[in-house]
């Protein structure tokens, strides 16, 4: 952030540029600028270094200080469902999560809940083989809810620690596809009322403000528990998660930083904020 030493128009414009170019979005920017001006006037902040620290602080307040991990049930099956619009990295992320939990000595099962897209089941099967875990899958074109019902039943019967459910990509604007997702959630609850224990939205870091619409609709329809921000190894900053946290209170739990099985990390707000402002 540049050379101005007080909150003048030049400084506000620089702030606007940072917030927009990192995809925090117009609404996120407006909220942050309001917080900013209130606090800065109260504390009579005049030094530009202090202004930058204040911005960091506001981000910390919005994103929380410490990572929010994926909640695992102790000694009981944890059901984790991945959802999101097309191409955001759901299937790949499930492969990475499976590896992470296998490395922790947990038994993992996958559910091939994308029964629609060409070779979706084959794609998930490659990951199951790579990681060394069971996969419940049927013929392509079948009923997604049926596969998921059987997978939850099987995971419970075989005393698995973790069940990872892949779902087909779908635009949040497609009412019938959102209804299908709600049906999948209902059948999960038929087997385990408390499940899914985590419903994670895979969000592509290159996405602009449409990410807020995605999160809002998915959250309204099927109750999200968090986000996984993928493709952060690119040049996009993924700032929209700040707006999503502010508006919907949904935290980012994990980040995807590549296409390999190990490219999944716990979301660290401090590192993320540093990268946003770098």
């Amino acid at each position, binding site marked *: 952030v540049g050379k101005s030493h007080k909150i003048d128009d030049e400084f506000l414009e620089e702030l606007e*540029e940072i917030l*927009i*170019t*990192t*995809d925090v*979005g*117009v*609404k996120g920017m407006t909220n942050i600028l309001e917080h900013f001006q209130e606090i800065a006037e109260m504390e009579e902040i005049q030094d530009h270094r202090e202004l930058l620290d204040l911005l960091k602080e506001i981000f910390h307040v919005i994103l929380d200080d410490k990572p929010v991990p994926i909640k695992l049930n102790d000694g009981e099956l944890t059901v984790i469902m991945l959802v999101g*619009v*097309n*191409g*955001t*990295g759901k299937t790949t992320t499930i*492969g990475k999560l499976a590896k992470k939990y296998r490395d922790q000595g947990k038994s993992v099962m996958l559910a091939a809940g994308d029964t*629609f*897209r*060409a*070779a979706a089941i*084959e*794609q998930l*099967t*490659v*990951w199951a083989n790579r990681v060394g875990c069971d996969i419940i899958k049927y013929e392509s074109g079948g009923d997604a809810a049926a596969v998921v019902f059987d997978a939850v039943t099987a995971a419970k019967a075989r005393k698995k620690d973790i069940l990872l459910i892949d779902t087909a990509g779908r*635009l*949040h*604007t*497609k009412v019938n596809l959102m209804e299908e997702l709600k049906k999948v959630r209902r059948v999960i609850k038929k087997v385990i009322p408390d499940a899914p224990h985590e419903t994670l939205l895979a969000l*592509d870091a*290159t*996405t*602009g*403000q*449409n*990410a807020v*619409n995605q999160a809002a609709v998915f959250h309204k329809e099927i109750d999200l528990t968090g986000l996984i921000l993928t*493709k952060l*190894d*690119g*040049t*996009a900053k993924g700032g*929209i998660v700040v707006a999503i946290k502010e508006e919907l209170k949904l935290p980012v739990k994990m980040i995807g930083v590549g*296409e390999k099985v190990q490219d999944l990390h716990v979301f660290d707000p401090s590192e993320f904020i540093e990268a946003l402002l770098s």
Partner: protein
Amino acid sequence: SLSDKLQGIFEKLRGKGRLNEKNIQEALKAIKMSLLEADVNYKVVKDFMKATKEKALGQDVLKSLTPAQQLIKIVYDELARIMGESASELILNVNPPSVVMLVGLQGSGKTTHAAKLAKMLKKLGKKPLLVAGDIYRPAAVKQIQVLGEQIGVDVFSMGTKLSVPDIVKGAMAFAKDNEIDVVLVDTAGRLHIDDTLMVELEDVKKVCTPDEIMLVVDAMTGQEAVTVAKEFDDRLDITGLILTKLDGDARGGAALSIKYVTGKPIKFIGVGEKLNAIEVFHPDRIAQRILG
């Protein structure tokens, strides 16, 4: 909508006597925010607003009886001018086979749109060939084979052990021997900053001398659209773009940013997952969507 917003702004000003340069600022700010909300690139919006302001003052919008309408028209005309005058055609070679390469970031819709183009070309009486150029993504070859089967188009594959340029070389030989009209080369998704994989695309280009290199871009892409498009364009000299997933509610500002910065035309849009969900791009329609 933006035009409602501007109407409201100018009506409020009407009571306050003569319109002047200062109170047109509120209207200009509303336009700027609308473009930023549409994910148009920040720098592009700055340039655009500078040109818009000059036009607005020059045309003396302030003296107009309908300043909101006049301002909207200035903005809309400028948007449409940037997007290009009319839909661009697919470049097909006089001497077959024509070659179309599809490139872009991970998950943008390349494989799906290779198949959509193949289906479209088949309907036009051409003999297309799909090339399985993604040797990395799990079951990528299977994916394009399944799509090829669905539309009755041959898929050329040499598995995942040979290099992509070698596979494409094989595809070109096959195409010539089998009287193929159009070769559609699907490639793996990649980051514009991955030099090794960008070099792979440059090598593929050398091997098949494409008539079209289409950058496939997701309509929901945010600010980074310009950086990505510029890098692919600088390295490959793309000939056009396919903007995908426009069946959602993304405003699609990336389209304006990319056209403004690269000058390359958007030729097609993807409007669904089914293989018939592809349309020729119409610049005026996206201008309306971006403005909001």
